């Protein structure tokens, strides 16, 4: 019998090694797999490259991982936020490498990585500082920039429900980067708010098919303030 369920967040992240590249889901705090990030902090891996839309909020989650000095490089689209003081300080001190990527290009680079596409031409950022040094091409009357795919050793994502095969559904805008990240990492680890029996997810509604998920762990189970249907 296939079961990808692990008993704890600590068990889920046990083998993440120093120097690993780790994709982390979430847009701000929506969809941020906070328990997995905390487990990674506790586990102690360092010299990490993190791929996330942002660069941490406040002092918890990703920000705590940065503050602990575990991250060498971050690939993201929007590090600067009102509460990104941890990132801001490290970046200004030259202690953190930043690769800034336009948000749609970030999403597409991850999708390409998961789909076996090495690189693609996109019109985004043509003629801007973010295209400097990159190959460009004029195709059918429009200018494009060549962008490489992104892959990772691990993806840490958050989903709403999952079954033992690793089929996942998400909740509202907390879906954001998780489906692409799930496909682009060697080992995808999902924390789910609810583990459900095999067969209870509508196959037509599954967003991330289980083939992409290597491990899943149920955490908390607490839903946000308002549940669906209200």
């Amino acid at each position, binding site marked *: 019998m296939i079961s990808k369920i692990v008993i704890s967040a600590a068990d889920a992240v046990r083998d993440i090694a120093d120097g690993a590249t780790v994709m982390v889901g979430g847009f701000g705090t929506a969809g941020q797999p906070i328990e997995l990030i905390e487990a990674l902090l506790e586990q102690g891996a360092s010299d990490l490259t993190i791929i996330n839309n942002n660069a941490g909020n406040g002092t918890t989650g990703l920000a705590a991982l940065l503050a602990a000095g575990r991250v060498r490089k971050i690939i993201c689209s929007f590090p600067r936020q009102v509460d990104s003081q941890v990132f801001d300080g490290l970046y200004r001190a030259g202690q953190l490498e930043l690769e800034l990527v336009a948000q*749609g*290009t970030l999403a597409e680079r991850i999708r390409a990585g998961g789909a076996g596409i090495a690189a693609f031409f996109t019109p985004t950022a043509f003629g801007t500082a973010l295209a400097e040094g990159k190959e460009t091409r004029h195709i059918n009357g429009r200018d494009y920039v060549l962008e490489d795919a992104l892959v990772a050793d691990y993806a840490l994502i958050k989903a709403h429900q999952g079954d033992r095969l690793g089929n996942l559904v998400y909740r509202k805008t907390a879906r954001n*980067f998780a489906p692409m990240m799930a496909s682009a990492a060697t080992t995808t680890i999902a924390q789910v708010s609810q583990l459900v029996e095999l067969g209870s997810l509508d196959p037509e509604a599954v967003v991330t098919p289980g083939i992409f998920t290597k491990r899943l762990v149920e955490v908390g189970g607490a839903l946000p303030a308002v549940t669906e249907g209200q």
Partner: protein
Amino acid sequence: MKGPLDRDGMANRVAQDIPEGAYVNLGIGLPTKVSNFLPVDREIVLHTENGMLGMGPVAGADEIDLDLINAGKIPVTELPGASYFHQADSFGMMRGGHLDICVLGAFQVSISGDLANWHTGGADAIPAVGGAMDLAIGAKQVLVIMELFTRDGQCKLVTECTYPLTGIGCVNTVYTDYAVFGLQSDGVYVREVFGDTSVTGLAEMTGLPLQQLPG
């Protein structure tokens, strides 16, 4: 004497140009205000790039759901017919030319439609681009809403941008407190002036070669 429009007036003016049936992305900041003035008799579908179509108003205190936020990370609501999707689909909607209108703020817009709105270029500024560059090139029409002058009187509609660019030749129309400017390949057309401003007066204030839209 009638003065220029205030920020609500500018947002209201943009809203009147958004047609029935349009799929629209409103950027963070002043563009978000446009949603307060969309004509109630038109069905307009709002897109938020973090993964939703059919976005409703900002959530009231008893409606807050931290899984349902807009691109500015503010809790919002969903309207009947809403849909959720991941970020690659969301940005594919833009880049693929499916979105009708995008409304953005700007530091500067050039008369050839170049947009600068993501980075001041300051030595100590932390760069953050988010969806700005994708939005700039990703809608059938890109509308900019901005005050025509900075607080210290510099015109933000310029011959050539001095701030780092977000996109090249991407802006179609600029809505300001003084006038609406259409950026066309043959020049800048003043579509409408507000208050007591005249096209001649605007040309003096901005130092730009402005043309009046006939009729």
